[in-house]
């Protein structure tokens, strides 16, 4: 086991709008080691992005209550002053957003946008040094350095996402959070970007939190996986723990796998999870998944969240699973 870089301890986020309380994230425990890739999997509204924004310290300032701790490299991020946070954001932790089309400033050349980040974090660096770094980074993300004087609109979607990644790694961060980085891209381009990110991660040795709904990408890229549902982590473990079909899994994880159209075998019908993800302001009592769960029994609809069953690295939060079977 490596050295812990990021630790999220019993962390919760509540939003209050018009007196309606939405529990976006509740009691999340996560950790990322140095050089490790964590996949954070879940559907719309599961709280993935809220968790990521919490780590970045970018949650909106009003109507938000948080609980718990986020510790990054020994420093507590929760409650840190904005001025100190700015030294961490971009330099030590940076984030790639889903939509590359709106995340780039259309009036500046891409090379300058990358250079800006380098200059912000290294104010004393010389211009020639900056240029060298920019060329270096562009090579790493697979853009010809001749294109640095072009503007964002001259780049295709896949290329823009590479620029975004270049900007994110320009500060040489220890932790990179990628929020659905390839969702807006075509499959063949997605494959290129994932391949590039993988070799990039090896080269830089940084840790990555990859937020995605695509289990295929997780299987390809991650070391550890956490499955989120309705603001909670319902299952987590190493890649093997989660993808080993012979083990017991959370019914939601099983549902996710079953709803994927499988290209390697032919099935007549898909087996979707019934029902819909609840809105964070109307979460059911007991296990948050019980109204949709095929294994649900009486105990599931009562009390608090189910206990977490742990076996080595594998955790499942479910009444129906027993530690000895895991």
């Amino acid at each position, binding site marked *: 086991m490596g050295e812990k870089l990021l630790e999220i301890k019993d962390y919760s986020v509540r939003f209050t709008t*018009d007196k309606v309380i939405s529990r976006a994230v509740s009691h999340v425990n996560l950790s990322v080691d140095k050089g490790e890739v964590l996949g954070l999997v879940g559907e719309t509204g599961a709280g993935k992005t809220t968790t990521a924004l919490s780590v970045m310290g970018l949650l909106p300032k009003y109507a938000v209550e948080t609980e718990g701790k986020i510790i990054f490299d020994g420093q507590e991020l929760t409650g840190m002053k904005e001025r100190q946070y700015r030294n961490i954001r971009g330099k030590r932790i940076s984030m790639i957003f889903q939509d590359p089309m709106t995340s780039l400033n259309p009036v500046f050349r891409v090379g300058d946008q990358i250079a800006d980040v380098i200059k912000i974090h290294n104010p004393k660096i010389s211009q020639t040094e900056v240029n060298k770094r920019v060329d270096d980074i562009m090579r790493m993300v697979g853009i010809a350095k001749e294109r640095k004087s072009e503007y964002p609109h001259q780049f295709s979607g896949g290329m823009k996402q590479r620029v975004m990644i270049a900007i994110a790694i320009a500060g040489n961060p220890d932790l990179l959070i990628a929020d659905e980085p390839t969702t807006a891209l075509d499959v063949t381009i997605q494959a290129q970007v994932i391949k590039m990110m993988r070799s990039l991660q090896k080269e830089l040795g940084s840790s990555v939190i990859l937020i995605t709904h695509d289990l295929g990408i997780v299987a390809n890229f991650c070391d550890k996986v956490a499955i989120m549902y309705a603001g909670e982590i319902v299952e987590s473990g190493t890649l093997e723990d989660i993808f080993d079909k012979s083990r017991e899994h959370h019914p939601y994880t099983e549902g996710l796998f079953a709803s994927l159209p499988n290209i390697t075998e032919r099935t007549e019908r898909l087996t979707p999870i*019934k*029902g819909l993800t609840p809105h964070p302001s109307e979460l059911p009592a007991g296990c948050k998944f019980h109204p949709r769960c095929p294994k649900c029994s009486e105990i599931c609809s009562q009390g608090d969240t189910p206990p977490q069953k742990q076996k080595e690295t594998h955790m499942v939060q479910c009444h129906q699973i027993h530690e000895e079977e895991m």
Partner: protein
Amino acid sequence: MANTGKDGRKRMKKRGQMAEAWARMKTQPIAVVSLAVVAVLVLVAIFADLIVPYSKAITQVASDKLLPPGTAGHILGTDGFGRDMFARIIHGTRTALEIGLISAGASIVISTFLACLCATVGGWVDNLIMRFIDVVSCIPSLVMALAICAALGNGIPQLVFALFFTGLPMHTKMVRSVALGVAKMEYVESAVALGAKPGYIMMRHMIPNLASVIIINGTAQVSMNIMMGATLGFVGLGVKAPTPEWGTMLADGLSYMLRNQYMVLVPGLVLALAALFINSLGDSLRDALDPQLKGRA
């Protein structure tokens, strides 16, 4: 998915669009106040004759010149010709609303139609209309209104036409820019695929989704036209001489401004307040009519 509709679970309540809008509006104090003020303005305009006879607004009483506000029989005093200020303000409301509502209403209707035409038909129709609009909007609106009034002579109908025409270009441009976006939406395409005719699409899809820009611009135009009408009255064009009108009242008061401030203050204040509340009513109406803001109030 469970279909529980039949087992007695209640359907979500159905309320009319208007009831819905009112429910949202009620919760906003500014909206209620603006609505009340505008309602008062409209009532005053309609029932002006019941409040104070028209004759009082135009009869010049040589002996009662320049009475200060508070004088018995003349709450707001009299002007330089001895006419009752209160009566002139009340009947001026009617003039102002007539001018503002009719001219702005006409330019909104026509410009919305033109804008929808531009957005849905496009091509040379769009080009033709827009180039015409460009040419018209080259002329500063005040200059154009002045020119039209000067050419057509004084009188309310002429003034209304002048204001209608000057308001047209800006409206068409604004509504068109939004309409272009709406026309590209898939629900419009879907209506085409369902076999809907252009008129249906314009009435059912385009206009409801242009409502916010129409309302905001429309109310702004009403208050702008009231102001512009007053401006033209101020320079001696527009409304014919004895007709009570806020702008002419201001102009009349100008020569007495140093000693009888009330003669400028009263019409000026009324004008400013009317403009303010009509504008803020527009804002509130837009919010109230938007179902996407439902329940957020």
